[in-house]
Structure formats: C-alpha cells, structure tokens
C-alpha cells in the first residue's frame, strides 16, 4: 500500500473513531452494513471514473448514464419480460458503447473530454426522462426476480455481519482493476499516456487506443453500477436518479490520489476515497448535522485533504527540484521565454 493510501486509511479510522465515540450507533451492524452497501455501489463507478482521470480525461456523464441505463434495465425486465441475464448483458454492452463513443469523440474528433461528457450528461438525462415520459420507473406489484435481487441487493452473513453483495461486487472489481492498472501492460500504458502522451507516442504506444479503452472500461463499469443502483432503489425517477454521482466519483478519485492532469492515482486510493465520502455522509446523519449541510461537509473535507497533500508533496519535492535545476542546460528554452518579459 502506498504512503498516500495509508494516510487516507488513517484519516478514515480517525473520522470513524470520532463518530463512534459521539454516536455509538455508527458501529451497529445494521448501520455499517448499509454504509458498506453504499460504498459498494459508489466504489464501482468511482473506479470507472478513475480510469478516465488517469489518462488525463474526465467523465461527467456518469450520473446520467446511471439514470438512463437504470431505466432501460428495469423496463427490459419488467415491461418486456427479457431474461434478466440477457438484460444485464445488454445494459453492460450499452455502457461500453457509450464509452466507445466518448473515447472516439475525444481522440478522433479532438473534442475536449469535458465538453464531450458534459453533452453526454445532458443528452442521457434527457433521454431517460423522455423514455419514461418523466414518470417513475419501477417494479410493478408482484414483480419479483428472486435470483437477481439476491445477487444485487442481498446480504450474506459473514461471521455475524450482514455483508452486502454490492461490496462483494466492488471487491471483485477492485481486484481486477488493481491487477489491470498496477500490474498489466495496459495499465502501464494508461499511466504513461496520462502523464506524457507525447513521450508515450515516441515509445510506440498507440495512445488513441489507450484513451478509447479507458472510456470503454469506464462505461462498462458504470453500467454495472447502474444495475446495482437500480435494483437497490427499485424505483427510478429519471429526473433526479443518480444526479451528482459523477461528482462523488471525481471526489473519490481525487481523494484517492488521482491528479486531474492525469497519470496518477491508485485503485486502493479510490476505494478508500469512496469509503471516506460515505463515512462522512453517515457522520452527517448520525451527528444530527442538518442534512442540508451534507455537500458542504464533504467539500470542506476534500479541500482540506487536498491542501494537506499538496503541502506534503511540496515539502518532499524541495530537494530534488533544486538539484534538477543545477543539471539543466544553461541555454535552455525557458530562459529564452523569460527574456521576453
């Protein structure tokens, strides 16, 4: 585990301890299990977001995609009697297709990722509302999918603790993502392209493909999260379902050490970031803080976290920077620039 991840873990433990001391209900199995369930669902699309942030992009349409795919999934299994496994496959395929479209627009059409995914945010939200005629999509009376419900929203008793299956899903996704990002060739390419696309190209990496792949992975994982969330809420009001989720995802990624400039961040960090955010949510509920302050608390903690990190990074960097300058070519281009001013 990296140093950065470790300090995040310590922060989570400190916050958790403080909350537990003030309100012991924090540690009740029921509360922990519910919080864990949230972490499971949010963690999956936060890892999705992190993949895109690592290559130096951004994905703003996560929340809208969750709404649109959620609506479609429920519609498929409830109104069209599609086998749920087939429906799941179709929804995941839809997520992958959305990712491929975003990646293609970013690399081939050279549109900035912020713009592409902002348009996505608006389009998918509108599509979801239009598709349901702005009505709430949900399971009708008596509709029942025992296997699917057990898989998506069930809990298994592990040593007396009701472990939500969304956490199992997150654990599987985290393990695969960790191996892919930190041990595989493709993962190395993701970081290389995010850090310095030019140098990556000079090393023969097809950076366009890497970027598209990152968006595709993001779309697929978001689709998986969309199904879990749809099954959890059981009814979807397309106007608000999943809104701001992309911001939770970006926040978790940034807390987890991702730089919006790309090339940085770890899977473990992103998961820890998600945990911290959900613990904070829980804190607001349990400590009797007005829930209207929810976002404000979250924003403040993220800001403090990033500031502290920046401070530590600068202190660490102080020495090597000075050495680097001494070794620099005296006739470097920077001097030339500076002389103009």
């Amino acid at each position, binding site marked *: 585990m990296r140093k950065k991840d470790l300090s995040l873990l310590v922060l989570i433990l400190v916050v958790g301890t403080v909350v537990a001391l003030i309100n012991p209900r924090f540690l009740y199995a029921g509360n922990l299990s519910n919080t864990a369930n949230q972490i499971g669902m949010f963690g999956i699309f936060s890892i999705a977001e992190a993949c895109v942030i690592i290559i130096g992009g951004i994905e703003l349409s996560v929340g809208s995609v969750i709404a649109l795919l959620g609506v479609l999934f429920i519609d498929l299994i409830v109104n069209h009697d599609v086998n749920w496994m087939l429906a799941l496959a179709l929804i995941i395929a839809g997520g992958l297709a959305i990712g491929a479209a975003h990646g293609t627009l970013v690399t081939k059409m050279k549109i900035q990722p912020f713009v592409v995914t902002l348009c996505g945010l608006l389009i998918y939200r509108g599509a979801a509302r239009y598709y349901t005629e702005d009505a709430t999509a949900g399971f009708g009376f008596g509709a029942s999918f025992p296997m699917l419900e057990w898989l998506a929203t069930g809990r298994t008793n592990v040593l007396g603790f009701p472990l939500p299956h969304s956490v199992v899903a997150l654990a599987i996704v985290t393990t695969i993502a960790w*191996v892919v990002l930190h*041990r*595989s*060739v493709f993962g*190395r*390419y993701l*970081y*290389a392209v995010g*850090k*310095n696309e*030019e*140098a*990556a*190209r*000079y*090393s*023969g*990496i*097809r950076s366009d493909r890497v970027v598209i792949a990152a968006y595709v992975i993001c779309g697929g994982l978001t689709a998986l999260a969309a199904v879990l969330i749809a099954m959890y809420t059981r009814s979807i009001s397309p106007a608000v379902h999943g809104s701001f989720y992309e911001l939770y995802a970006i926040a978790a990624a940034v807390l987890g050490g991702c730089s919006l400039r790309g*090339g940085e961040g770890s899977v473990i960090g992103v998961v820890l970031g998600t945990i911290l955010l959900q613990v904070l949510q829980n804190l607001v509920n349990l400590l009797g803080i007005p829930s209207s302050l929810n976002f404000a608390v979250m924003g403040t903690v993220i800001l403090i976290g990033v500031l502290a990190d920046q401070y530590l990074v600068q202190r660490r960097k102080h020495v*090597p920077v000075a*050495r*680097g300058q*001494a*070794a*620099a*070519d*005296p*006739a*470097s281009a920077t*001097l*030339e620039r*500076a*002389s*103009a*001013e």
Partner: protein
Amino acid sequence: MQPHMAEPFLELVDISKIYPGVVALDHVSFSVAPGEVIALVGENGAGKSTLMRVLGGVVEPSGGFIRVDGSERRTLSVTDAIKAGIAFVHQELNLFDNLDVAANVFIGREPVFGGPLKLIDRKRLHAKVQPLLARLGADFAADAPLASLSLAQRQLVEIIKALSLDARLVIMDEPTSSLTLTETDRLMQVIAGLKAEGVSVIFITHRLNEVQQCADRAMVLRDGRMVGALARSELTPAAMIRLMIGRDLKSLYVPPAAPPGDTVLDIVDAVTETYPGRVVSLQLRRGEILGLAGLVGSGRTELARAVFGVDPLRGGAIQLDGVPIHIATPRAAIAHGIYLIPEDRKACGLLLDLSIAENISLPDLASYLRWFLVDTERETGNANALRERLKIRAPDVATLAAALSGGNQQKVVLAKWLSMRPRVLIFDEPTRGVDVGAKQEIYDMLRRLTDAGVAILMISSDMEEVIGVSDRIAVMHEGAISGFLERSEFSEHHVLKLAVGETIEVRDRA
C-alpha cells in the same frame, strides 16, 4: 555625420558569463552607436544568445561591466534594459494571436478611462498605434486581428511594439529565418528606415549575404569569445566564415572495425511539413555513423520526425534494406527496427515520473508479458543489465528518471532501444545537456553499435561532435541537403560553408 561615427550610447566591457562547467561568454567587449546596424554571427552555441540576454537584462554577467549613456553598472535588469531603450524581437514572437494589432502593441500599457474601472480607451489606443504603422509603412490596420497577419507582418508588430517603447536599440534574433525573399527585402528596408531615424539594430543571423547587404559592422563570436569585428568594407561571407571557424578540435574519432556495408535506410526525395518545397535524399549504410549537420532550423529534426512517423511524410519514399516501407506512426517505425532518440529528452524521450526500469521496458512491454501481466522481475533484471552496460549512474533501476542527470537520462533513452535490436538509430543531439564524461561513454556506445551492424544517423549542432564522431557528414540548409562530406573532406570550414548555403568549390574539395 556618418552614423557609425557617432558616440556609442551603449558599451559592454569585458563581459563574461560562466555557467557550471561552461564558459558561455569570455571577456566580450563591444559598443553600439546610435543608428548603427550590427550583425552578430557565429556558429550554434557560440554565445550569441547569451550575449543578447545580457543586454536584455535576463542574464546576469559573471564579470565585466555595462556602460549606458556614460553611467557604468555591473548588470542590467529587465527594467533597466527597457528604460535604456533596448527592445527584443524574438525568433518565436511573443504575441497574442487572439488580440488585434493595437492591443498587442500596448499590452500591459493600455490607455484607460473610467477611473477605477480601468476601461480600455480603444479610440486612443488605435490613435497611438496609427502613426507607428505609418512610420514603418505597414500594410495592415491597427484593428486587424493578429491571427490574420503573416509571419513577416507579425514581426513588424513586434518592431512597432519596440518603437512604441521609444527603443533606441532593437535586437532581432534570426529575424529572417522564416521569411520569404520579398519579406526579407521588406525587413531590410525597415532596418534601413530605423537606421535613418537613429535607432540602432543588432541582428543575429546565419544568412551571411544579408549581413553583407545591410550591416555597418559584423561581430563574430566563437566559443564565447569575440574573435573579430569586420567593418562595412570587409564584410564578405568568406571573411566571416574564416573567423567563425578555427578552433582546435580534439580528435575523438574512432574508426569503425569494418568498412560500411550496404545501404540500410534509403530516404528518397522526402518532403517534410515544415519545408514543403524541398526534398531530402540520403542513404544510410550498415555500420556507419552519418552525421547530419546544419544550423538550428535547417530541417534536420523535422526529417527525423518524419522518418520516425511522428509527423507525416508529405512526399517521397523510404526504403529499408531495399524494400519500400510505409511509416505512419512511431509504432510502425519501431516495428521496422528504426528508433529515434529525440532532441527533447524531457518532453518526448522519457517519462520523468516513471522509474528507469519502467522507461526502458515501455516500448517493448509486450515482450515482458507473463499471463497478461508485466513480469517485473525480468523487467528489473533487463534494466539492471543495461544499467551496467551503459554505466547509468543511479542507486537502482527503481529510481525515477526525473532524479537523474542529463547524461544518465540520455543513457536511459538509449537503453530503451538497445534491448530491441536496432537496425537504424536516429540520434537527435545525442549529447545536449550531457556532461563531458557521459559524452565520451555515449560516443563509445555509438561506435560499438555500428560495429555490431547498426546504422546511425546522428543529428548534431555541435561541430566538434559532428567532425569528431561521424564517418560521413550530410549537411542541411533550409530544408534540403546542401552537400555530403567524406571523412577526408571533413573540416569546420566545409561544414559551415554548406550549412550557410554556400557551395564547396572544386578548389575546396581538393
């Protein structure tokens, strides 16, 4: 009164500038009189730019003093320089192409109204620029968007900006390097106009005929020393070249183990994006180091980028071992065993935040696969072997590339390709920013590679390196090859003559 007879208003006396390990300027003295046009010539790295930066107040000299209007001082600050009326026109123009001409000229000094609101007084702004435009005979309006102007017109905007600051001395760094002939003529007229108004001009150039055309005086720098000043009557290209060369070149040359073999890389009539009107043809043979010399901006890097597939080739063909190949991306070049070690190590050659081992394995990661994953043990092992072989000085191969010195970084870039059996290595400025010891190690490695059958194209602006290391030299001038030199014909004189676009006469060849 003759302009060059006037009292100098600016004098540099015994100016030196010492960087760690490099003497950039060595007791340089010269003076500028009102209305004087001075050409500053010299090879790449002779110290011209450093000298001009001292004048602009950007570089603080290590010794000597500067006399402005009779008052002596040790150094100039940027504000001092502006106050003294010294203005720069840079090779890479510092203009905002999202603003109009007037806004560019008065950027930071806009006439305002509205008190604390500081609204820009557009009328007054344009009124102030108009007479300056007329003075230089500019053919564009004050409110023309900069983006609509040609490069030559933009240069005029820079000059106008200088004049608006009441410049008495305008310094131009290679003003004509990207101008057409007619545009160059226009600029010469502008310079003559400035001169007539008593404004002095210093221009750095590699085009010796321009010096002849418009300078009152030429000063020649070599290795940071002022090696000669030529008066108007003595300004001939031959006299300038004679002064520019003539240092003792240490013999670095190590002959190859065997004479060069067949042609490996055959570039036929290649056209690059930067020089669409020029073609380049050259043959690179097995086991040779072909030095590619030329002045900065002569199109060497562009050629390398096109051959490596970074930029598209606009015309011509490339053959590898007699077979035509198509290279659209660096990946394609790499697949053919053609590797580039780029000029800009930090931006293109390396990923500074990755470790030595990760940098080395990056282009060839697929070969480190074990069940889909990177076999880090093999990666580290291979990197360690290369670290030994190339004498990369670092505590271990997990060290970040950013923490290495220039020489060791360059070795890491070289190591990337060595494990991939290169057929052709294109080395762009192999030892820029590299210390002396590492330089020699890199040269040794080049020779060992050619002896093993690799063909090396070495782009270099360092005369000592080109002459000392190459088996053969190709010289480029403004996007085309101006000549080839065999080892027996190597001399600074010949390289420089070809580099400035002159031909080598039969007499010279003998």
